[in-house]
């Protein structure tokens, strides 16, 4: 994977970040801190996937920064031997933005949870996405607040019984992919904690993307929301429910690809149909680079937040748009440099008082 380039808008996500001088292994990214999640927590799987993926980027460890908010998942940076910051609840994207704008030589990652990113931190998330700051955001979605011991979150399905909703929640949840696309995201993907290969693929695509990349990771919380994703993870269900998205390919799934996603001419969106009925030509072809996010959005609606009827995973959108931080730097670079501090302080309307002048009050 290349780490050189022009650092210009629309380039590679790692342009400007210096390459490593030696090959690395997953263990190079393990910090000396003991990992403190509950046994069986999905966070372990994601950590392992990231640790074995990072060497692939070929960067120097010191040029990688992970910034997190607050939540179980937000402990992530402690376990990675890179630079890191465990900030405050919901605001990691703001710190990451300030860092990315001033340091084009760093690869900046944000780790956040469904509460951190979508409840208290919703505003910063949507603004990072619209600005398209060169950040990679990993959103651990366990559909629950883990760290505060199990309240429902903005991604919990209606009716979720938790300590704060003894009679079941009544809120309609966000679909993080739809929300991101509505917020002008240039890169949105979804992955499962339990599928290392697919998660790694998505991480790779995110790292390559220049701009904000949002990766929603379905993450199991065995303690407070066990099995939240079983409906799509359970091996048999999986084939029938998971729609793998592959750029440039028709969107088909099922044991033999017997289902396809086709246009829903009544509703105006997309629907699932047996390919035998619709014919292969009716199946839409996935185009991550499309300028118009409409089809990616329509795909995101196949999962209505309740896994039903099917859940697309993979990269929904990976479109090109100049990254905010590149534009800021380009503007700064283009604004000359002729002036001296002396001139600046002097301004345009100065006058001089000569030593010899004297007046009396």
């Amino acid at each position, binding site marked *: 994977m290349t780490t050189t380039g022009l650092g210009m808008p629309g380039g590679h996500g790692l342009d400007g970040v210096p390459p490593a001088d030696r090959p690395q292994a997953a263990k190079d990214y393990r910090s000396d801190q003991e990992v403190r999640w509950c046994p069986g927590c999905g966070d372990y799987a994601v950590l392992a996937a990231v640790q074995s993926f990072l060497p692939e980027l070929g960067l120097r460890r010191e040029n990688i920064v992970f910034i997190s908010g607050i939540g179980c998942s937000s402990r992530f940076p402690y376990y990675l031997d890179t630079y890191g910051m465990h900030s405050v609840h919901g605001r990691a994207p703001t710190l990451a933005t300030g860092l990315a704008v001033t340091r084009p030589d760093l690869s900046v990652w944000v780790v956040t949870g469904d509460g951190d990113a979508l409840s208290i931190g919703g505003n910063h998330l949507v603004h990072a996405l619209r600005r398209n700051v060169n950040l990679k955001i990993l959103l651990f979605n366990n559909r629950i607040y883990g760290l505060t011991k199990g309240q429902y979150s903005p991604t919990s399905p209606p009716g979720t019984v938790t300590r704060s909703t003894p009679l079941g929640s009544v809120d309609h949840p966000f679909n993080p992919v739809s929300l991101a696309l509505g917020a002008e995201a240039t890169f949105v993907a979804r992955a499962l904690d339990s599928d290392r290969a697919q998660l790694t693929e998505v991480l790779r695509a995110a790292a390559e993307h220049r701009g904000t990349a949002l990766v929603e990771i379905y993450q199991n919380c065995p303690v407070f929301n066990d099995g939240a994703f079983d409906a799509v993870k359970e091996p048999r269900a999986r084939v029938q429910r998971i729609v793998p998205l592959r750029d440039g390919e028709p969107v088909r799934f099922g044991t033999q690809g017997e289902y396809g996603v086709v246009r829903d001419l009544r509703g105006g969106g997309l629907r699932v149909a047996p390919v035998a009925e619709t014919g292969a030509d009716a199946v839409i072809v996935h185009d991550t680079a499309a300028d118009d996010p409409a089809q990616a959005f329509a795909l995101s609606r196949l999962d209505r937040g309740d896994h039903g009827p099917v859940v697309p995973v993979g990269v929904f959108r990976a479109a090109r748009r100049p990254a905010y931080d590149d534009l800021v730097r380009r503007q*700064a670079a283009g604004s000359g440099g002729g002036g001296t501090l002396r001139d600046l302080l002097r301004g345009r309307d100065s006058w001089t008082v000569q030593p010899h002048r004297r007046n009396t009050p």
Partner: protein
Amino acid sequence: MTSPTVPRPPVRLERVVIRFAGDSGDGMQLAGDRLSADSAAFGNDLATRPDFPAEIRAPQGTVPGVSSFQVHFADYDILTPGDRPDVLVAMNPAALKANAADMPPGATVIVNADEFTRRNLQRADYATSPLQDATLGRHVVHQVPMSSLTRGALAGSGLSRKDAERAKNMFALGLIAWMYGRPTAGTETFLRRKFADRPELAEANVTAFRAGRNYGETTEAFATTYEIAPAELPPGTYRQITGNTALALGLTAAGQRAGLPVLLGSYPITPASDILHELARHKEFGVLTLQAEDEMAGIGAALGAAFGGALGVTSTSGPGLALKSEILGLAVMTELPLVVIDVQRGGPSTGLPTKTEQSDLLQAMHGRNGEAPLPVIAPRSPGDCFDAALEAARIALAHRTPVLLLSDGALANGSEPWRIPEPDDLPDLRVEFATEPNAPDGSGAFWPYLRDRRTLARPWAIPGTPGLEHRVGGLEKADGPGAISYDSANHERMVRLRQAKVDGIEVPDAEVEDPDGRADVLVLGWGSTYGPIGAACRRLRARGLPVAQTHLRHLRPFPGNLGAVLRAYRQVVVPEMNLGQLAGLLRAAYGVDVVSRSKVTGQPFGAEELADALAPVIEGEKGEPA
């Protein structure tokens, strides 16, 4: 039209206070600005005070819609924009109404007579015309039909009636410029530059300006002109500067002197926005500005940049500071350098957004959860904002701590001549980033919380530095290694270390001004009250009442000698634009019985008013509390 008169020699004055007042759309801020600039260029010392409504443009002709700009210029070094105007230019009845009460007897009132129509009088809630009844009995009133004279001067310019009339502020300015012998080239150049892309407007404004001067010269009514000689200012090159501009330049200079990029993360808010506006223009000096989605994002970006080795700055006003509280706490915990500027305005809540106040001091001190101490400093005058910005950056960088700088609305928009420093004379703010592992056990590990023995600052190890990879955050840290620690004894130690670090910052001693050394009453202030307090002390001394003055730049930590200073006086009086916030802090810190004199009107103290309030304290029996 009256016939030309033979010019009489101008009357010499030491000082004069002129106030332009008109509708929000009448261009009063511009007129005042130009009068200041021309006076500055002439060599007077000066101070200004703009005052405008919170609405962008309130209904025309009403009292709430009045905008004003006061200029005080003198042939000696002055301290305030002046208490009460010697000359009021009132562009309409509402402007007269809003300002009439401020004028001392004998003051001159110049009104735009064209605007004193029935309709406008009603809008300003005048039952009868103040030009006809006794309202202005004690003033010298000049009725000048400025609108029609301006229109007349511009007849044939091709401008519409409305556009032509717009230039009447320049007519008014011209008249005043003539009366007070102001130079005119500056304003004419300015106007041509400002309207460079609409030359017809430039010419119209210049014409109106000249028409105003000519009107003065050719009218008997203004027979007397005045002369205010240049002030004896220390030699040097000067410019006129507002507090917000000075802050922005100070921050830019700080970045240059530290050799660091500056990142300002800010969300617009009155009266702080101009700091963002000004800094947005200095990209070539390594200053990046990020207009954030909100105040948290502003400080968050600044702190993120600080983690990366930049000078992080965020600017706001009181309500915004409230929103930054949580991340300020994170900055305290992560011990990263950060400059946080609060340009205080009238509170609480949205309060009086365009007025001034000093009521965020306690918020600055205490507005965070837990024991979260940080240094607090305050500039005393518009020009001093420059030095204060450098001082804030110095402390932040050297001590690895967020620093709160408390400006206020009066400083932000007020202006004064400022002696421009030579960049090389500015403090050297260079910092050393950590580059090597530092674990005392020689293990080759990096301890991000191993402190400098003298300053107690922790190392600043920025991403990109090999071998120093580490994690910081808001959870309590182990003293030294910096890993998360829930240990009780460690927490106690860290709480006290953070406090000791701030308490131990070296700040200059407080200096007391007591010209004849006879004072037993000390007047102590902070921030923008410097001018009024200083002027009040001059007046008191002139009345034969000895008084000592000291003014605090450093509010946390206090100067080392402050306790001794306070105890040296029979009585300490603290004038503040709040309900006595500093007074309470001094009582808590030193157990001395300070007297608070507070004013919370959204307006600065007047020198006379303050002198009157202080006099009884000084006159009180010696040896007894006043």
